[in-house]
């Protein structure tokens, strides 16, 4: 008997025992739904990691003012991180390409004509653009001369251009930042959103000297960004090709010395690099994915046991059917095939339902919790492989029992 005939018979039989079929499917549906959701969310998280690293910038180290754990904006009450620290890093640490100190201040109002917008002001040195690999799109960037003269020139982000100038060329125009007037000399290229959903293009970049003395009237800075030398080709495949870890350690030691910090006193700065950023995100999502992945496998195994039991009952109840089929020429292997295919068809249909549900749930989670979910081919393959495996695993013994049944005994029921 051909496979299509077998599948046809199976579907007909299954549709006549709907409740039983539904119960058999249920565990596979739940298992595959979980699996699909995890893979979709996991893939999304992975993409977020990549995005995180991209927006943090590769090959980089970041020092932020203020102690504590984790990473975030600098603590504006910490006054110990200075331009001299940046200079010291530049002078005494090896394998560094750029050192870019900068200040960040939130909640500034930008005004042009009748338009206004609230955003970030970043005070920078000319090297900032390279250190962030964030080129300008139009005009010029902040120069050494701007910094030396405390000029009121600024470079604006794409969102600022769109919101304040609405298509008009902003170069040469003047805008007000809070109550100070600045001249727009350049436009930054588009950067998009941060992994936390912040619009990175809603910013105005000014000379760091101007930001410190004219806008905030402070003597300290918020961050120092360090861009390491690019690795030589021979080291490209090492786990830390640029030696970011050792540079990070050297900077930490240097800053502790300069800030007179000895253990057990806490650091008054935080330092992180591209590698630890990706590792942190990777750890969190990795643990979650492993846990839920294991859970879905357990559900599938338990589901398999349930299905096997239902099939054993089914074989017993359908003894007479088996006997009748044997009397009219079904071979042992036709009976084996019928029961096995019945189980596999059940689990595969369960898998398809689970896959569909999983995609919807992943989408739902991504909408509700702002996690990205990626619909890809992997869950489709996984769902198919696992549902067939569960079907074969659960169906083989009941099917064998049916196949070796003595036809004479079977037909008596």
């Amino acid at each position, binding site marked *: *008997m051909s496979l299509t*005939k077998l599948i046809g*018979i199976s579907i*007909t039989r299954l549709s*006549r025992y709907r409740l039983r079929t539904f119960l058999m499917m249920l565990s596979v549906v739940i298992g595959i739904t979980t699996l699909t959701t995890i893979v979709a969310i996991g893939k999304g998280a992975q993409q977020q990691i990549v995005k995180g690293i991209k927006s943090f910038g590769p090959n980089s180290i970041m020092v932020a003012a203020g102690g504590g754990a984790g990473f975030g904006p600098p603590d504006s009450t910490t006054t110990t991180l200075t331009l001299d620290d940046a200079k010291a890093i530049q002078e005494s640490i090896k394998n560094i390409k750029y050192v870019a100190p900068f200040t960040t201040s939130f909640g500034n109002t930008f005004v042009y004509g009748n338009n206004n917008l609230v955003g970030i002001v970043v005070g920078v040195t000319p090297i900032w653009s390279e250190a962030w690999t964030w080129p300008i799109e139009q005009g010029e960037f902040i120069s050494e001369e701007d910094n030396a003269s405390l000029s009121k020139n600024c470079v604006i982000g794409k969102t600022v251009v769109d919101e304040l100038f609405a298509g008009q060329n902003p170069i040469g125009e003047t805008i007000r930042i809070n109550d100070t007037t600045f001249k727009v000399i350049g436009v930054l290229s588009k950067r998009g959103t941060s992994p936390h959903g912040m619009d990175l293009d809603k910013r105005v970049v000014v000379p760091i000297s101007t930001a410190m003395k004219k806008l905030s009237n402070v003597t300290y800075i918020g961050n120092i960004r360090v861009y390491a030398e690019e690795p030589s080709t021979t080291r490209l495949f090492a786990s830390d090709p640029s030696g970011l870890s050792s540079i990070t350690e050297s900077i930490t030691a240097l800053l502790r010395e300069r800030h007179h910090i000895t253990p057990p006193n806490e650091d008054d700065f935080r330092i992180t690099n591209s590698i630890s950023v990706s590792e942190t995100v990777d750890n969190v999502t990795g643990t979650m994915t492993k846990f839920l992945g294991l859970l879905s496998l357990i559900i599938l195994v338990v589901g398999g046991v349930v299905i096997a039991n239902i099939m054993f009952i089914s074989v017993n109840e359908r003894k*007479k*059917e088996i*006997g*009748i*089929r*044997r*009397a*009219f*020429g*079904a*071979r*042992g*292997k*036709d009976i084996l095939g019928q029961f096995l295919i019945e189980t596999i068809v059940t689990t595969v249909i369960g898998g398809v339902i689970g896959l569909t549900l999983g995609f919807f749930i992943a989408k739902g989670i991504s909408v509700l919790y702002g996690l990205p979910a990626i619909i890809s081919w992997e869950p489709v393959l996984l769902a198919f492989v696992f549902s067939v495996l569960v079907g074969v695993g659960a169906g083989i013994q009941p099917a064998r029992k049916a196949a070796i049944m003595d*036809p*004479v005994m079977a*037909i008596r029921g």
Partner: protein
Amino acid sequence: MIKLQDITKTYKKNGDMQVEVLRGVSLEIQKGEFVALRAPSGMGKSTLMNIIGCLDRPTSGRYLLDDVGVETLSDNELSRIRNRKIGFVFQAFNLLPKTTALENVELPLIYSAAKTDLRAKAKAALEAVGLGERMDHVPSELSGGQQQRVAIARALVNDPDIILADEPTGNLDSNASGEVLEIFRELNRKGTTIVLVTHEQEIAAEARRIIKMKDGKVISDERRDN
């Protein structure tokens, strides 16, 4: 075509108790015969029929079907013989529940490798037993006589050489019995060998040869010409 030589069949019952159901049965049935196997209930006639139908194997003795020793055949080969050469009709009809008459009749066809149009063949068989109008009915929607006719259609759909009927009228009223027997007579006229197992004398009287059994043995074998 059927040649039984000294067939015995012993069942184990409750562990050690041995029950000898057949005690050396020898008989020959030629192609085209209409034979009634008559015996009181529980005297081994169903066992004998199962052996003739290749559904069961004898404990000892030789069974030649078309000159082939059945005991030498594998399970798959026996399945093939049941599919091609034999059509069973049971007392309890043994139709698949929740399955239409047409699908029931198709059953032997799906196990034969023939690539014929299953539907058409099954329809023709149902029409031959006068149930062309009831093809889409499931067994629970049919009367006993109709169910047995569906079962006969299923038995003859693969054009078997032999029809083995085990008390085919046992669950039917006299009207329906008459219809069923008429179908058998018609099939026999067209050349199909019919072996009818029964304990009723009136039913056995339909056959041209009556083999009587008792205590697992053949006690008489008479032919009638009519």
